[in-house]
C-alpha cells in the first residue's frame, strides 16, 4: 500500500484529458441525437393529432355537403314534378280545345250537308211536283218557261 505523488499527478492529467475528450467529442453528439429524436417524436405526435383533427373536420364537412345535396335533389324533384303537372295540364287543355274545334267543324259539316240534302230534296220535290202537275194537266209544260214558278215552288217546299 503506497501512495505515489507522481502517479497522482499523472492520473490527474490523464483524467483531465479524458474529461475534456468526453466533453468535446462524446457528450454533445449523443445528447444532440437524443434531443433531435425527442423533437422528432414530439413532431410526429403533433402531426398525428393534427391528422385526426383534419379527418374529423373533413368528415363533418362531407356530412354537410351531403345534406346540402339532399335538399338540392329534393328541390329539383319537386320542381320537376310541378313542371310535369303543368305540362299535363297544358296538354289536356290543348287536347280539349282541339276536340272542341273538331266537334265544331264536324257539326258545321253536318249542318252544311243537311242543308245541301234539303236543297236537293227541295229541287227534286219541285221537279216531282212539276212532273206530277204536268201529268195531271196532261199538258206539256215548258220547263224553261215555267222554271221561275218551279224554282219558287221548290223554295217554298
Amino acid at each position, binding site marked *: 500500500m*503506497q*501512495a505515489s505523488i507522481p502517479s*497522482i499527478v499523472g492520473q490527474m492529467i*490523464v*483524467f483531465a484529458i*479524458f474529461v475534456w*475528450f468526453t*466533453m468535446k467529442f462524446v457528450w454533445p453528439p449523443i445528447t444532440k*441525437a437524443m434531443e433531435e429524436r425527442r423533437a422528432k417524436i414530439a413532431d410526429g405526435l403533433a402531426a398525428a393529432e393534427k391528422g385526426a383533427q383534419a379527418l374529423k373536420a373533413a368528415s363533418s364537412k362531407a356530412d354537410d355537403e351531403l345534406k346540402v345535396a339532399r335538399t338540392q335533389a329534393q328541390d329539383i324533384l319537386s320542381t320537376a314534378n310541378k313542371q310535369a303537372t303543368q305540362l299535363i295540364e297544358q296538354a289536356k287543355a290543348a287536347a280539349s280545345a282541339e276536340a272542341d274545334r273538331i266537334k265544331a267543324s264536324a257539326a258545321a259539316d253536318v249542318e252544311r250537308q243537311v242543308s245541301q240534302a234539303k236543297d236537293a230534296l227541295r229541287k227534286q220535290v219541285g221537279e216531282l211536283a212539276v212532273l206530277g202537275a204536268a201529268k195531271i194537266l196532261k199538258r206539256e209544260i215548258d220547263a224553261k218557261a215555267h222554271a221561275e214558278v218551279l224554282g219558287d215552288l221548290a223554295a217554298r217546299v
Partner: protein
Amino acid sequence: MAEGHSPAEYVTHHLKHWASSEDAGFITMDAWHIDTLIFSTVLGLIFLTLFRIAAVRATSGVPGKLQNFVEIMVDFVDNSVKDSFDGARTFIGPLALTIFCWVFLWNCMDLLPVDLIPQIWAQIYGAMGHDPAHAYIRVVPSADMSATFALSLSVFILIFVYSFKGKGVGGFAREFLFHPFGPKLLPFNIILNTVEYLAKPLSLALRLFGNLYAGELIFILIALLPWWAQIIPGLGWAIFHILVVTLQAFIMMTLTIVYLSMAHAHEEHH
C-alpha cells in the same frame, strides 16, 4: 498460489506495485506506479473509444445497439446530474459520465482472476531477462490510492472552481469565515470548514480505495485456499463484488455531482 512461497509472501507480492523505482515509503515522491497508469489509461481509452464510436455514428433515427447502450448511460448520468445540479450541464455531465465509466472499468478489473495478469507479466518479465520473482503488477487501479486520490483531488479543485463561479471569491470567503456559527465565532468556523473541505477529497478517495483494496485482498486470500475450496467463496465474493463494483462507481459519480452542486449553489440554508 505460486509454489515455494509462504502465504504472507504471496500476499505481499500481490500487493506490490510495478514501480519505476524502489521506494518502500507510504508516500513516495519519485516512484511512478506504472501498472496503475497503464491499466487506468488503457481502460479509459476503451471507454472513450466505445463512446466515441457511438457518438460518431449517433443518429436521431432508429439507434443501433451500441448507441442504445451509450444513450442509456448518458441519459442515466444526465438525470443524476439534473437531480441535484441546477446549472448548465455541459461540463458536469461529461465529468460525471467519465468518472462513472472510468471507475466502473477500474473496479471491473477486480473480477479478473487475481493471478491471471501477474502470471502473464511474470512470464514476460522473465523472458526479458529479469527475475520473474520480482515481477510485480497490480491490475486494479482503484485499489491504488494514487488513482483514487487523483480523482478526488481533481474534484477538490473543481469544488473551488465552482464555488468561485457560483458565489464569487468574496462570497466563498464569507461563507468560509462566517458560516455556520456567524462572524463572532470566526476561528471555529475556519476549523470546521477546513475539516469539512478536507474530508471531502479524503472520504471520496478512501471510500473507493478501501472497498476495492479489501475486495482485492479477499480475492487474494481466497486464492490461497486449495483449488477445490476456492470455488464457492470465490464465486460468492465475485457475485457480491459485482454490486460493489457498480455501487462504488455510482457513489463516486453521485458524490462528485453533489459536492459540485453544493459548491455552486448560493447559500439559501440560513
